[in-house]
């Protein structure tokens, strides 16, 4: 009983280790036919996710699978395949999971268009608030005698503050911490 539990614990530990991230970045030398290929390679290994690691790209992983995939990508670049072909090759085997930049389709529509739409909505609401504010500003307000008195006192205050344009400007600036 004890021993079987011990074995189970070991197996559990090992399966956890299986997923341990390779935190160290891959540092390796590679030769290409030209600088353009080298740049494409750097770009691709930065944009593609290592399928075994917790969250790192192929460039940033020491995992054996990341090394294999980097070699595969290099091989395909040298064979003259386009970036899209190389991405397709990996997506076919590992799914869209390997793309850090998700492709645009029905499932990622909200992801790509949500933020811009939200910005537009925010600015639209802002516009409406401004319009509402302006309307309130024009609306006449009835004041009773007491309120009128308070208003006059208040106005005196504000006009004193506004006597010099510059001082009020300074005040405004100072208050914007």
């Amino acid at each position, binding site marked *: 009983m004890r021993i079987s539990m011990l074995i189970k614990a070991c197996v559990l530990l090992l399966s956890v280790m299986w997923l341990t991230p390779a935190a160290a970045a891959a540092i390796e030398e590679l030769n290409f036919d030209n600088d353009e290929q080298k740049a494409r390679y750097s770009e691709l290994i930065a944009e593609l996710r290592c399928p075994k690691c917790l969250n790192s790209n192929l460039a940033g992983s020491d995992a054996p*699978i990341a090394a*294999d995939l980097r070699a595969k990508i290099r091989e395909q670049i040298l064979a003259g395949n386009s970036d899209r072909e190389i991405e397709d090759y990996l*997506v076919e*085997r590992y799914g869209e*999971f390997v793309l850090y930049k998700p492709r645009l389709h029905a499932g990622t529509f909200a992801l790509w268009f949500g933020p811009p739409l939200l910005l537009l909505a925010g600015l639209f609401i802002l516009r409406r608030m401004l319009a509402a504010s302006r309307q309130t500003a024009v609306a006449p307000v009835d004041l009773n005698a007491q309120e009128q008195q308070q208003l006059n006192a208040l106005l005196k205050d504000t006009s004193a503050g506004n006597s010099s344009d510059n001082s009020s400007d300074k005040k405004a600036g100072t208050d914007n911490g």
Partner: protein
Amino acid sequence: MSNRAKLFIPVAFFFVMLGLLFYGLGQNPGEVPSALVNRPLPVFEEPDLFDATATISNEQLKGGIFLVNVWGTWCAPCHAEHPYLVEISEREKDITFVGVNYNDVAEDAREFLAERGNPFKLNISDDDGSLGIDFGVAGAPETFLIDATGTIRYKHVGVIDNRVWEDTFEPLLAEIRRTQ
């Protein structure tokens, strides 16, 4: 919508997110999905582990139920899983066990199988990991279940033990056997 109702938008949004997070707690984010499930086996032709001159191709994995296990002597969980594979290979006679020796030294692999028993009918040597990539393998051990039509029905990542076998493989096998 009235202004009062608008104030409820944040709390409503929060509860939707909470539901999502609750769902997320039940999932295992470490698992890598397989793009190959329910797709035909990839086309391949790789050397036989025990006979470097012979090759094994995907054509040989047709017309029956196949269990393809990707393993390596360098992989500690594979060592842990090995006795159980030997055990079920003796029990499940209608399944052909196929070993893919992944990113390994052939000599070490042969020694390992001689010492601890060989559950595999076919032994493929994938010393450069290229077949692994075609199978969408991210590490070892990984195990694929292939039905008689040559379609990959399931991919298991990690160690196979009794619990995994009974909970996931047996129901699938029952279904495959029924439809055959």
